[in-house]
C-alpha cells in the first residue's frame, strides 16, 4: 500500500510547487519605458473602470455616449469598460490578481497609501502637454502628489459641509436661506426641527468608519487634528475632540434631538436624509446627485451650508475622487488612459461645443448639471465652463449661495496622513459609546482610542 499512498503525496507536492512557482511569477512590476516612448498613434487597448451599472440608466447612457465619442475621435484606442469600482475590501485583490483596470476612480483618502505601496503609476510626464491639466486647482492637485510627482488626476472634489433639509427648516419656522453658521445655531435648529416636525433634528453616522470620519471633520472645525504631520503620534486626546463629544452628548442626552438609532452607516444616513427623516447632518457637500438623482429627494429640499467653524477651527476636511492608473500599464496604455480621462472629465472645460452638448444631453437624461462642488480646475476655467452651460443648469444653485460663495475661502485640511481608515474605525467606537451610554466617560474613551491608534502607528 505504501506506493499507492506515496503517489498522491508526490502529486500534491508537485501541484503545490507548480502553484507556488506560478504565484511567484505573478506580481506587479513597473512597465518598461516612459511617456516619451509612448507611440500615441499605435493601436492600443485599455480597460476603464467605473462604468455606471444598469441600476443607474441615465448615468450609464451618459458614460456610453462619451465612450462612443472618444472612440470616434481616437480610432486607434480600444476601450473595454468595466463596472469595477474601488472598494476597501476588493482593492488589494485587484492588485494581487493583476486585474486592476488601466484607469479607475479612487477616493482622496486612499491615494497617499497607494503611492507609498507602489500600487499606482506615476503620470507626471503624461500630463505635461495638456492645456487643461496645467490649469488644475493646485490645492486639489496637491492631494495626488508626492515628492513633486503626480500619481493621479483629481476628477471631482468637495468639502465637508452641513447638509440640511430646506423643507424641514420651513416646517420648523427656520429660514432655509439662512442656514446655521455656528454650532450653537445648529443645536437650536435641531431643537426646532425635533419639536416642530416628525423628523429628528440632527444625525451623525457611526458605522463602517463614518463615525470616526465625521468626528475627525468636527475636530478640525473645533480646532485640532488627530494625528501629527509626521504620522508618528496620535493626538486623539485633545480639547477640541472632547468639545465635539460634549456637544454630541448634549444633543443626544439633554436635547434628545438625535433620534434613537445610533448604528447608522453611510447608506442608512443617505436614505434617512433623502426621505425627510433627518433635519441636518455633516457630510460631503457633493451629495446632490446621490440624494436627488439616486434617492429621489425633491431638489428644492436639498440644502448645503459651509461647515460651521469654532473660533479655533482649522478648516474643513476635503474629499473627492481621483483617476488612478495601473502600475503595470505600458506607456501607450497610460497615454491612452490619460487621454480618456481628459476627454471624459476635462474636455468640457476647454471646448465650448463639448461643454454645451454634454450639459444638454446630461440635463435631458436627468443628470445634475451645476451641482455644488469644489472646482478641480482653477476659478477662471470653472467660471468659463459655468457660463457656457448656464442654460442647462438644472440644479437650484441659488439654494447654496452661502456654500458656493465661501467654498474657496475655507481652509482645506487634508485627511490624517497615515492609516486614516484605521483611525476612523477606532473612533467609531468612541462615537457609539457617547451616543449609547449616558454615563460614557469621554476622557477614558479618547484615551483608549489614543492608546490603540498609537500602537497602530508604531507598527508602521
Amino acid at each position, binding site marked *: 500500500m505504501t506506493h499507492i499512498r506515496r503517489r*498522491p503525496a508526490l502529486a500534491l507536492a508537485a501541484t503545490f510547487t507548480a502553484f507556488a512557482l506560478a504565484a511567484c511569477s505573478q506580481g506587479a512590476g513597473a512597465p518598461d519605458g516612459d511617456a516619451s516612448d509612448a507611440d500615441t498613434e499605435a493601436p492600443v487597448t485599455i480597460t476603464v473602470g467605473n462604468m455606471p451599472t444598469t441600476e443607474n440608466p441615465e448615468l450609464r447612457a451618459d458614460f456610453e455616449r462619451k465612450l462612443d465619442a472618444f472612440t470616434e475621435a481616437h480610432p486607434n484606442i480600444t476601450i473595454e469598460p468595466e463596472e469595477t469600482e474601488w472598494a476597501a475590501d476588493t482593492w488589494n485583490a485587484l492588485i494581487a490578481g493583476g486585474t486592476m483596470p488601466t484607469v479607475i476612480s479612487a477616493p482622496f483618502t486612499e491615494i497617499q497609501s497607494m503611492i507609498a*505601496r507602489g500600487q499606482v503609476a506615476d503620470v507626471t510626464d503624461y500630463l505635461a502637454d495638456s492645456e487643461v491639466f496645467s490649469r488644475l486647482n493646485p490645492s486639489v492637485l496637491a492631494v495626488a502628489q508626492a515628492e513633486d510627482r503626480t500619481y493621479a488626476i483629481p476628477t471631482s472634489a468637495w468639502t465637508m459641509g452641513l447638509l440640511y433639509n430646506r423643507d424641514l427648516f420651513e416646517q420648523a419656522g427656520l429660514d432655509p436661506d439662512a442656514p446655521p453658521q455656528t454650532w450653537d445655531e445648529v443645536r437650536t435648529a435641531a431643537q426646532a426641527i425635533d419639536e416642530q416636525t416628525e423628523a429628528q433634528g440632527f444625525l451623525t453616522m457611526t*458605522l463602517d468608519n463614518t463615525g470616526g470620519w465625521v468626528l475627525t471633520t468636527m475636530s478640525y472645525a473645533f480646532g485640532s487634528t488627530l494625528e501629527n504631520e509626521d504620522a508618528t503620534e496620535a493626538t486623539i486626546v485633545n480639547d477640541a475632540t472632547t468639545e465635539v463629544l460634549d456637544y454630541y452628548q448634549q444633543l443626544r442626552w439633554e436635547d434628545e434631538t438625535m433620534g*434613537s*438609532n445610533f448604528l447608522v*452607516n453611510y447608506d442608512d444616513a443617505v436614505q434617512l436624509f433623502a426621505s425627510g427623516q433627518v433635519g441636518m447632518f455633516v457630510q460631503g457637500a457633493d451629495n446632490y446627485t446621490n440624494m436627488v438623482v439616486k434617492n429621489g429627494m425633491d431638489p428644492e429640499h436639498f440644502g448645503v451650508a459651509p461647515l460651521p467653524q469654532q473660533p479655533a477651527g482649522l478648516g474643513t476636511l476635503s474629499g473627492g475622487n481621483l483617476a488612478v492608473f495601473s502600475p503595470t500599464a505600458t506607456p501607450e496604455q497610460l497615454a491612452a488612459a490619460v487621454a480618456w480621462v481628459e476627454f471624459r472629465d476635462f474636455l468640457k472645460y476647454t471646448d465650448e461645443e463639448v461643454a454645451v452638448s454634454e450639459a444638454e444631453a446630461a440635463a435631458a437624461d436627468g443628470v445634475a448639471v451645476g451641482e455644488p462642488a469644489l472646482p478641480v480646475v482653477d476659478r477662471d476655467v470653472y467660471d468659463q465652463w459655468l457660463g457656457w452651460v448656464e442654460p442647462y443648469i438644472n440644479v437650484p444653485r441659488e439654494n447654496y449661495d452661502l456654500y458656493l460663495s465661501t467654498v474657496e475661502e475655507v481652509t482645506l485640511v487634508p485627511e490624517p496622513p497615515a*492609516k486614516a481608515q484605521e483611525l476612523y*474605525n477606532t473612533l467609531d*467606537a468612541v462615537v457609539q459609546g457617547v451616543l449609547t451610554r449616558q454615563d460614557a466617560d469621554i476622557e477614558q474613551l479618547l484615551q483608549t482610542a489614543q492608546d490603540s491608534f498609537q500602537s497602530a502607528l508604531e507598527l508602521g
Partner: protein
Amino acid sequence: MAVTDTTVRAAVEPLTAPPRRRRHRSPATWARRGGLTTLLFFLPLLLSFGYFSWWPILRSLMLSLQQTNFITSTWVGLANFERVLADPLLGIAVWNTTYFSLLALVVGFPVPILTAVFLAEMRRTRGVASALAYLPVIIPPVVAVLLWKAFYNPGANGLFNTMLGWVGLGPLAWLNDPDLVIPSLVLYATWAGFGTGVIIYLATLMTIRTELYEAAEIDGARILRRFWHVTLPQMRGVLLIMLLLQLIGTFQTFTEPYIMTGGGPENGSLTILLLIYRYAFVAGDYGRATALSLLLAVALSLLSALYMWATRRWSTS
C-alpha cells in the same frame, strides 16, 4: 500426531527461502494496468481541491508569516501572531464570540429539538408545519438580517418595541444597547438556523422504531420519561454532531454582526471573524488577519478534538 519431515520442511521453507524479488512496476506497466485512467479521473479533483482549498490554506500559512501589500512581501516570522495576541480588541472579540456561542447553545440548541419532537407527534399537518418551520432558511441571509435590523428599531414604533408596548414593557434599545446586542443577535441566529435543525431532527425521529415507545409505554413510562429514555438516546449520534457543528458555526459568526451592528456599539458585538475582517480590509494587514484565522482554526480543531474525546462514550460510531 507425529511430526513428519515434510511438515517441518514446509514450516521452515518460507523462512529460509530467498526473499521473493519485489516486482518492479515500470511506468509502462502502471499505465497498462489503468494508472492513466485513474489519474485522469483523479486529476480534476486534485486540481480543484488544490487550487480552491489546499493552495489558499498554504497561502494563508505563508501570509501569516509575512508582511505584504501584494506588491512586495517580507518574511516577519511570528511577529503577526505576537501583534494579534497583544491587541486589546482580541480579548473583547474572544469574549463576545464565546458569549454568543454559549448563549446560542443554551437558547438555540434545544429549540429545534423540541420543535421536531412536537412536529413528530403531528400526523396530518406535519408536512405543512415542517415546511413552515424551514421557511426562514429559504430567505437569503442578507435580506433576513436587514429585515430583523428593522424589527429591532429602537424607537417606540419599532416592531418588537410595539409588541412589548402591548404588554406594558419597553421600549428597549436592542442592538443599540451594549448589554442587549449579543442576546439580540442570538435571537436572530436561532430564528434563522432552527429550520435546518428541525428537518434533520425530524428525519432522525422518524427512524426511531415505534416498538421502543410501545415497550416504554407498557412499562408505564409517561411522555417525559419516553423522551428522556427513548428519544434522546436514539438521537444521540445526530445530537452530538449537530452540537459540534453549531459550536464551530457560532464561533465563526460574521454576517449578523457585520450587517446589523458593524461590531458596535462600542465593540459590544465584535466577533473574532469581524476582527479578522477589520485587520484585512480596514487596516489592510493581511498578515495579522491570516495569523488570527490560523489561531482560530487551531482553537476550533482543539475544541473539536476535546469534544470528540469527551463524548466518545456516548458516540454511536
